[in-house]
């Protein structure tokens, strides 16, 4: 089956998604824009985790630590050295990327299980590690960041469309949006070309990959570096949108949240992290607020859901997804799409004798 034939609906979806996200702040409130910025930030970090876990087959349960590094890099540069925050975003990405690359070197020696253990321990220890160099990180007081005013041309453009002046939250949304588009485009290019093919080969069998000439160690550490780069950018944006970084901002729950989103959205797929981020960001909020606000849900049940909190829902969904839909939402949708198509013009495809690509082939 040729690439061309399957391409149009995807390009259509991509354009639709980009237009939707670009126009979203003009129809929602400033507060809702800040929520969606939060979701996009998670999406960037999950894209990074996806490169590592989904494509290269390595495990990290501690990506919150890389986000913390990115956030603190930006915060310290902006707060102590008065660097323009926008400038600090790529710097945070690069520094975190280098840290991830270096972390990837000892990680080469570890089996998947041990890597999971070590990164999980790292995630748990992160807040106390941040506190230690208090003179540098601000310790438990954290660092307060000023949220930037939008530049004049954005203000003008925005008020021309909506009639209301642009807020900082909406400006931060657009910064995040641009970063997300660039980084998703970048990831899409990587996974379609040599590095992506090499990583997938390693994931599906290191020995076979090495035998066919793939530089296993090189690509595995590259995946770690790239993945951390994404987490670093996400962390930097996270600090910007929160306006505050402190040790408690990076609990182990953040790392778990990233993993949940990446898995639920669908590993080894490009749209997966985006869907996963929307899910992981809004689920805790909605389970707490939407459910009790609905009059048709019996108050007893609503109170139970609120009291159970997101943890129970998260845990249950993680398990159910792993058992019933290991390729996540994207996997389900793709499978349904191809089943539908096979039914509609099944005969033609069957004659070629080729299987439709699954989510794993991008």
């Amino acid at each position, binding site marked *: 089956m040729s690439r061309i034939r399957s391409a149009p609906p995807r390009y259509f979806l991509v354009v639709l998604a980009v237009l939707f996200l670009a*126009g979203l702040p*003009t*129809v*929602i*409130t*400033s*507060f*809702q824009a*800040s*929520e969606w910025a*939060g979701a996009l930030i998670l999406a960037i970090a999950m894209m990074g985790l996806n490169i590592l876990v989904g494509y290269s087959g390595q495990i990290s349960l501690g990506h919150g630590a890389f986000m913390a590094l990115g956030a603190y890099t930006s915060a310290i540069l902006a707060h102590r050295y008065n660097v323009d925050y926008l400038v600090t975003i790529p710097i945070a990405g690069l520094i975190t990327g280098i840290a991830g690359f270096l972390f990837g070197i000892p990680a080469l020696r570890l089996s998947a299980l041990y890597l999971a253990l070590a990164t999980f321990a790292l995630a*748990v*220890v992160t*807040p*106390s590690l941040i*506190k230690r160099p208090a003179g540098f990180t601000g*310790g*438990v*007081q*954290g660092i*307060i960041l*000023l949220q930037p005013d939008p530049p004049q041309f954005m203000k003008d453009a925005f008020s021309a469309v*909506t*009639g*209301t002046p642009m807020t900082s*939250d909406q400006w931060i949304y657009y910064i995040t949006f641009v970063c997300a588009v660039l980084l998703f485009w970048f990831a899409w290019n990587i996974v379609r070309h040599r590095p992506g093919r090499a990583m997938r080969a390693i994931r599906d069998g290191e020995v076979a990959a090495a035998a066919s000439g793939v530089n296993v160690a090189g690509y595995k550490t590259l995946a770690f570096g790239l993945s951390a780069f994404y987490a670093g950018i996400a962390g930097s944006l*996270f600090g910007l*949108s*929160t*306006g*505050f970084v*402190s*040790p*408690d*901002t*990076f*609990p182990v*729950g*953040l790392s778990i949240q990233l993993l949940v989103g990446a898995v639920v959205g669908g590993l080894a797929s490009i749209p997966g992290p985006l869907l996963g981020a929307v899910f992981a960001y809004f689920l805790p*909020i909605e389970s*707490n*607020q939407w459910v009790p606000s609905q009059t048709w849900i019996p108050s007893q049940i609503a109170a139970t859901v609120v009291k159970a*909190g*997101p*943890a129970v829902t998260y845990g249950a969904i993680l398990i159910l997804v792993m058992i019933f839909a290991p390729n996540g939402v994207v996997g389900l949708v793709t499978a349904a799409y191809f089943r539908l198509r096979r039914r509609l013009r099944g005969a033609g495809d069957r004659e070629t004798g080729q299987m439709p690509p699954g989510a794993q082939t991008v």
Partner: protein
Amino acid sequence: MARNASRLAAMAAFLVTLAACGGSSAPSAQTDVGVTSNSILLGNTIALSGPAAGYGTIANAENAYFTYINNTQGGVNGRKINFKILDDAYNPAQTVPLTKQLVEQDQVFAMFSGLGTQAQTSVRDYLNSKKVPQLFVATGATTFMADFSSHNYTIGWQPPYQGEAHIYAKDILANHPNAKIGVLYQNDDYGQDYLKGLNDGLGSKASMIVDKESYDVSAAVPTLASQLSKLKASGADTLFLFTTPAFTIGSLAIVTKLGWTPATIYLNSVSNPQVYMGFAAKSGAALKNVTSVGYIKDPTDPQWANDAGMKLYKTVIANCSTCNVNDGFNIYGAAVAWSMVDVLTKAGSNMTRANVMNIAGSQLNETNNPFLLPGVVVKTTSSDHFPITQEQVINWNGTGWTLTGSLIDERGTIK
């Protein structure tokens, strides 16, 4: 697709109109956002889940008091108080969006009694820039009272940790002038504030502190034996625990297990509720010569059995099905909610954010808060923004706390 676009456009138009209405519909001269002719909406973020969820009951107790006021008095000046509580799990990254939601989407009049130093710091600039009152934050970090001049839409309520430590310093200088002090403190703003207060309070006698050891909140309780062994070996005969409840209980037990019997153990007030002392005793702590301070009536103390304030508290807390009547956090919640109602009552018909903030920050003068120890005044003036500064030394008698001496006032000693 076309239909979707038109629906989006319609939604946009609707939302824009809505926003315009919210922004420009001229409020009557004496009210602000969140106030209607018959209601006032207050917002709160607190940990209902996660590591600090034990504090979450405070918000429920506050809500119980507002419910009591709404039911018995029809609210304040005919306006019922609605209280929206959101769970931030003690994570500042969640406090920020939830606070924005309460302010921008739910349109609260003011934030009330938000929990946690880091969490409340994370939204302080935002709330001040929006001129939304951040009233009576549930933390004793000095910055929330001392920095009123730069953040005049933020005010604390409970006694500052440093002031409390001053009282310990006075007590020790008066009663144990030759003590050798060892301090165990949590390595965050909370522990550090206490430690600074103790140092300042001892002044020229600060060398009485022979050793101080810190721990991180991520530590497993049994590993505190390492710090406590060091403190014991330092020759200290007086132990200060500037710790959070679980670590306080654990430390008290470990001290006994180390065969250490310090002449006096001082506990900070946050972790001294009687129920925690009971846990410590069950865990094996000897609990001899344990001292702390208090400023709120202890629901378990028999001396208040016939006290009007305590009876009121018990009526109030019946409105909360999940609240344990003996939990010190709940009477704290009732007491701070009492102050909130007091402020709203004083604001009267001039229910603007500026006026309410002015009353809370500079014009408080409560001498009759029924849940506080007799004589404790909740007071702010144009030059003093520390609402509560009086506390009384209490000693553990084996089953409860005994009030000792008289109230000690630290007003004006903390900058």
